[in-house]
């Protein structure tokens, strides 16, 4: 297997066996699906207005929560040194790690938004759009998160720092993602918002990989 495949496999195995991140994050999303409607009681239909915002908020937080350890453990136990001595450039290392994060956390979370959407009273014909935007948005979150985690390697207050770095960069996908759903619900075309979301993903991908690699290089002191 080539380097990228090996690293991807390792990262995914670590995500599933190490911290239980994916299931925790999914559980977090799901619990929202259970408890919010319980609290809402009879006014469930009014909840539907909140639904896009709530789902996207939850999605972004769930992604954020699993990011802290993206590079920190590797930094502490010397894995980053090993990774620097292998076949992949820093950019590719960041890219593969981010991809693994998306595959193990982002995609499951995107799937999980469906039951959440349903239980929050989202119209059934909105669900396909929700799934697509959530998957795209999660990818953008993973990229920006990777950037934040790489820049924060070895910093004091690592977790908080990542949140602060990442928060402004998380806002656009949230706005456009929720915006697409709102537009569809209002009978407008979700196309423009969707296009903007895709643009966010692209920009996040390029910038995340480049800046993440710069963060990796900077951590070598």
């Amino acid at each position, binding site marked *: 297997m080539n380097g990228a495949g090996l690293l991807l496999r390792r990262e995914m195995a670590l995500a599933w066996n190490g911290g239980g991140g994916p299931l925790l994050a999914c559980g977090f999303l799901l619990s929202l699906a259970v408890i919010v409607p319980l609290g809402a009681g009879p006014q469930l239909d009014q909840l539907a207005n909140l639904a896009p915002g709530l789902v996207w908020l939850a999605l972004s937080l769930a992604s954020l929560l699993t990011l802290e350890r993206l590079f920190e453990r590797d930094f502490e136990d010397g894995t980053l040194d090993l990774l620097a001595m292998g076949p992949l450039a820093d950019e590719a290392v960041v890219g593969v790690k981010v991809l693994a994060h998306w595959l193990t956390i982002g995609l499951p979370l995107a799937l999980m938004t469906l039951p959440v959407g349903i239980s929050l009273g989202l119209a059934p014909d909105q669900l396909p759009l929700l799934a697509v935007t959530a998957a795209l948005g999660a990818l953008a979150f993973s990229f920006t998160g990777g950037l934040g985690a790489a820049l924060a390697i070895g*910093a004091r207050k690592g977790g908080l*720092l990542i949140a602060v*770095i990442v928060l*402004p*960069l998380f806002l656009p996908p949230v706005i456009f993602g929720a*915006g697409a759903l709102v537009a569809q619900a209002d009978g407008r075309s979700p196309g423009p918002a969707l296009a903007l979301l895709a643009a966010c993903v692209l920009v996040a991908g390029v910038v995340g990989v480049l800046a993440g690699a*710069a963060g990796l290089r900077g951590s070598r002191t």
Partner: protein
Amino acid sequence: MFGLANPDTFARVTRPLIAPLWVIAAGLLITGAVWAFRVPEDALQGDTVRILFIHVPAASLGLAVYGALGLSCLFYLIFRHSLADAAARAAVLPGAAYTGLALITGALWGQPMWGTWWVWDARLTSMLVLFLLYIAYAVLRGAFDDEGRAARAASVLGLVGLINLPIVKFSVDWWNTLHQPASLLRAGGTSLDPAYLWPLLIMMAAYFALFLAIWLTTLHTEIMRRRVLAMRARQAREDRHV
């Protein structure tokens, strides 16, 4: 130009500018403020139009200062010159203050004009992002005890943040938002009533002078601090040798 990159030259050349800049900034601020109170009320907006003179220059300078910060970061990443890092750091406080002021005055203005404090549209959101970027830069810059590492990481983030500038600037043209489209700086000349234009321009100049004054003062303090540190280090080395 590049001679200025030497901290000592920089200090020598800019030193005499600082005090005049503070005086100019104060004078312009006072003139602009007085003038702003004497412009006629707007037919549509009534008295609230006066927010314009605080809001617009704050928003413009919030953007421009981030531009200066981002370019300093780029400069630092290319030349690894610590003056560039110091310049970026010195821009954070005035920039964040201006941006915060634009957000607050905008929200205050939005309530009477649009009937809401806030909407998540492109202009307002991207401006909020700008504010958060200032904070993120400052927090990241302070999060390492290794200075070089901190400067590098923060510069990367500062550079990344530059992407947001055109988004803020052109958000009103690219997307339909509640926010006023550009009337001052746009292709085809300004469309603002001269009665508002002049005090506005004076306020702009005042904000700009104020920024320069704060920026240069901070930079000078930083250069002095480094000189003291270097001197102490030299002293310590000499002490060890005797």
